[in-house]
């Protein structure tokens, strides 16, 4: 089966466990399947941003651990999921990968904004317009009944294209700060950054894990301004300081890498 075929059936390759709870854990290459009685919490994360910024590649990288061979324009909404283990709890992250073209977001995607637990905004670091459109996406999010207190993160993708970077990190950081979001600069393509992409989604998972589980997101005790500094995370080099999340993810990315992230 070729890679692109695999991409089409991405869902089938992720463990379909839902409520009957089969927990997969790879130990020394062997896959162990453990029956669990508890109901696993499921979190819904929507990934949005302009066309061709790499939303599909990011979610694919996280859920299937590689960069897709042949990517295509997403039509409508694609769905991928991944089971993760956070501080002793098994969670499931459902990633809703949306189409970037404006016409789709206006009428089609609204169905998928409902009951979202977190939002990932993506822009292309090599394309200024994709960053300049961010306020529109945020507004879009607000309009779809999304509470401002649900976790949101800003991701600049394609940081591997060092010589083509058009969006200055300071500028992006200011923007992220003004919206109380942590900023990440990463690359879905660069294999060395694979852990970094994981770390980004894992920070979201941590935030969600620490939220009150059975309440609507807006009742959970998030303080928008403090969230980035208070989040715990796993297996990170160095201690977090100042912008905790971001530094954390940078630690995994490898400090002072050529991509500047």
């Amino acid at each position: 089966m070729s890679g692109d075929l695999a991409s089409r059936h991405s869902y089938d390759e992720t463990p379909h466990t839902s409520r009957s709870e089969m927990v997969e854990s790879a130990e020394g290459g062997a896959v162990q399947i453990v029956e669990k009685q508890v109901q696993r919490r499921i979190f819904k994360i929507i990934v949005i941003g302009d066309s061709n910024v790499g939303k599909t590649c990011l979610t694919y990288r996280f859920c299937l651990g590689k960069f897709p061979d042949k990517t295509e324009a997403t039509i409508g909404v694609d769905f991928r999921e991944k089971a993760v283990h956070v501080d002793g709890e098994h969670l499931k992250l459902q990633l809703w990968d949306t189409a970037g073209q404006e016409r789709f977001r206006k009428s089609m995607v609204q169905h998928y904004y409902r009951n979202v637990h977190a939002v990932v905004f993506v822009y292309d670091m090599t394309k200024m317009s994709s960053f300049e459109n961010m306020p529109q996406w945020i507004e879009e999010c607000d309009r779809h009944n999304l509470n401002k207190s649900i976790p949101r993160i800003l991701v600049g993708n394609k940081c591997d294209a060092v010589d083509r970077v058009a969006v200055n990190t300071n500028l992006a950081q200011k923007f992220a700060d003004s919206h109380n979001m942590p900023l990440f600069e990463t690359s879905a393509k660069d294999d060395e950054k694979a852990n970094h992409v994981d770390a980004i989604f894992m920070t979201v998972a941590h935030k969600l894990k620490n939220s009150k589980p059975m309440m609507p997101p807006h009742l959970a005790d998030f303080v928008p301004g403090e969230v980035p500094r208070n989040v715990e995370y796993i297996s990170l080099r160095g201690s977090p300081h100042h912008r905790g999340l971001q530094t954390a993810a940078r630690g995994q990315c490898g400090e002072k890498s050529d991509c500047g992230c």
Partner: protein
Amino acid sequence: MSDEEPSSDFDQEHSEGAGDQPENARISLQEQEYSPKVNGRLQRQHRVFYQRKAKKIEQILSKDPVDIAELRQQSISRGGLLTDDLRRRAWPILLNVNVKNITPKPEAAVLQGHRDYRQVVLDVERSLRRFPPGMEEQHRLSLQDSLVDVIMRVLVKHPELYYYQGFHDICVTFLLVVDEDMAFALVEKLSLGHLRDYMEATMERTTQVLNYLQPLLKKANPELYDYLEGAELGNIFCLSWIITWFGHVLNDIKSILRIYDFFIACHALMPIYLTAAVVLYREKEIFETEQEMPFLHALLSKVPDNLPFEQLLSNAGDLYILYPPVELANEALKRFRRAQAQAAARKQLALQKNAQRKSILPDGNVTFAKVTWWMLGAVASVAVYALYSSMDWDWSSWISHGS
């Protein structure tokens, strides 16, 4: 079905030498596809069937004028138009294209100046999967250039048409069979006909088309309909099926071309009927899946390559006869209006919530308001007490004076 099989089929079909092959050889390829596991006797029957069908289509095409009803019949019935050679000749006739009067290509600057040009280039650059794996890179690149031109020629000629992601999937299918000029002419006709609803400035009309699906499922299989509705599945799972005529979701170009033969010759809403046929066919899998939107969306949005498409096309045709669009229109419109009203209500709620947040969130103002209210309350109660006590005093003194 492995990936290699269709590609080798495709290479034989689409290589330069394809025209030199004897008709029989190509028909036997066709037959392999539709009956991979039949025994020798059945194989012979199939071969005879497709040979006769090819001959019949040749006869229809050789007449002048061509009997379009008969040609349409052949395009719909089992196997469709069979070969690319027959498609090249039959498609223009089915779509009423004047082969001798194709609008010439405007200058590059005109095509590149269009509002949608950049989006089209982005999507075409990412359309690698649509080209057969064995194709040489140079050939593929030149086809991709042609693909951009085909799309832009349609959009430039008809400013009222808007590009949608997925339109490129339609165009590439034609470009893999016919040359650029013909692809343009065919797609232009489709854009003004079958695909017109999808090419509006907004996707409102597309949503209306999608809303035919549920009423159809409801009539064909009420239990399945209830199950899907109970999960609030929505209909975005099949959006790409409908607006790309399954070109975006299938891997096998032969199946895609067969489906295109069918759609070209049918009513514009036929993709909805095929979608319903696919969903109905997967009934068992659906009931085995948890009744939650994410799981059902994930199950259904991928179309397995090994579905018996010939059977499903026939089922779609049956559904169309049993429940023609006119019987579904009312229900579809109701669904559309209901969804619109719900969306408007949600928007209103969001606005209210945001407004509330805005008025309460700034901490300084809240403290100020609290202090103000507390002060006002205190002043008022002191005043009332003073008034009461003074009245009390007055009252008693008045009584004592009076008595």
